[in-house]
């Protein structure tokens, strides 16, 4: 175990063909969270994502093929686990997530919760999703709230800070695609708590959403099914 980073935070940036934005994202994080180590998980990009990330000043872990966002983030968790980081923050490589809010997420972890979610909907923000997406978001919010027993507004946000305890759990079990909602249930089922921190998100600087219209139906079905599966799954450990 690496003792130098034993008290440190690891910022995990999963990136697939994000050469247009990843360097800026890394630079912004270095400015706003100078103490943290930054790991870009290059998820089999075919462009110059890895080089851009290195030039921005991040460590780069290259996956040999495109594994999907969940597996990429989990690779970051594995890294954090092996290197002994005491917390991990996942930030999208497209510049949507404001790095200036990372310290607030980490503060929330200090209060003993295992995950802090940067949430778009706790307070009214500028974010206006399209109708179908908005519907999906509401359905997941309803289902997760029902299961967890408290109101959860933004279940699909990929802007999250996770405690070491949470990292150890999610290294073992994390969906390979569309992981955000299911991860919340997994945490809850294993007795861990999460909170939502209202943040204002940026519009993406480059690239496009990982969920195209084509995949929207699959996304809805998969995540809804995953929620119910997560309920009946056996607990870890």
């Amino acid at each position, binding site marked *: 175990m690496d003792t130098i980073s034993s008290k440190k935070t690891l910022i995990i940036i999963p990136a697939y063909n994000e050469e247009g934005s990843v360097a800026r994202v890394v630079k912004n994080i270095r400015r706003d969270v100078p103490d943290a180590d930054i790991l870009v998980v290059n998820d089999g990009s075919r462009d110059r994502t890895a080089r851009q990330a290195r030039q921005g000043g991040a460590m780069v*872990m*290259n996956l*040999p093929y495109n594994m999907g966002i969940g597996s990429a983030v989990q690779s970051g968790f*594995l890294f954090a686990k092996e290197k002994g980081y005491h917390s991990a923050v996942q930030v999208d490589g497209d510049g949507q997530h404001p790095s200036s809010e990372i310290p607030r997420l980490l503060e929330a972890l200090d209060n003993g919760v295992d995950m802090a979610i940067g949430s778009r909907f706790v307070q009214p923000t500028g974010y206006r999703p399209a109708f179908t997406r908005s519907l999906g978001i509401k359905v997941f919010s309803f289902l997760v709230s029902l299961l967890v027993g408290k109101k959860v507004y933004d279940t699909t946000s990929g802007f999250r800070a996770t405690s070491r305890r949470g990292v150890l759990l999610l290294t073992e079990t994390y969906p390979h695609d569309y992981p955000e909602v299911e991860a919340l249930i997994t945490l809850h089922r294993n007795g861990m708590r999460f909170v939502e921190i209202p943040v204002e998100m940026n519009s993406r600087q480059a690239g496009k959403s990982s969920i195209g219209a084509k995949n929207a139906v699959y996304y809805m079905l998969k995540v809804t099914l995953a929620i119910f599966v997560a309920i009946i799954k056996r607990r870890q450990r």
Partner: protein
Amino acid sequence: MEIALHLRVLIGLLCFALVGIIIELIRQNRLKEHYAIIWLCTALSIFIFGIWPDSLNLISRIVRLHHLTTLFLVSFIFLLAIVLHFTLVISQLFDRNRRLTQEVAWLRFEMEQLRQPDND
């Protein structure tokens, strides 16, 4: 139920061919013994139904169905079980492959760090 002699011979030959193919595949290291067991059992069942068709009649009488329906039902359940088994195997392989890939990526990262110690 009567099955014409030439049909029985055909079924018998089919079974021998199947067993022969399976043994050859194992010999060439292309089929895991574990799966060979399934296919050998399949060959055996076909063989039994072939030389002793009354066994099918017996089952038909127990489940009170026409013998063709029974044959169809038995084959269908068998195929379903095999497909389920394969899906289980694929899921397990998927999980292991994923973890393996992640470990490789992490080891490669570590290796690159060792090669350039000044590169933080």
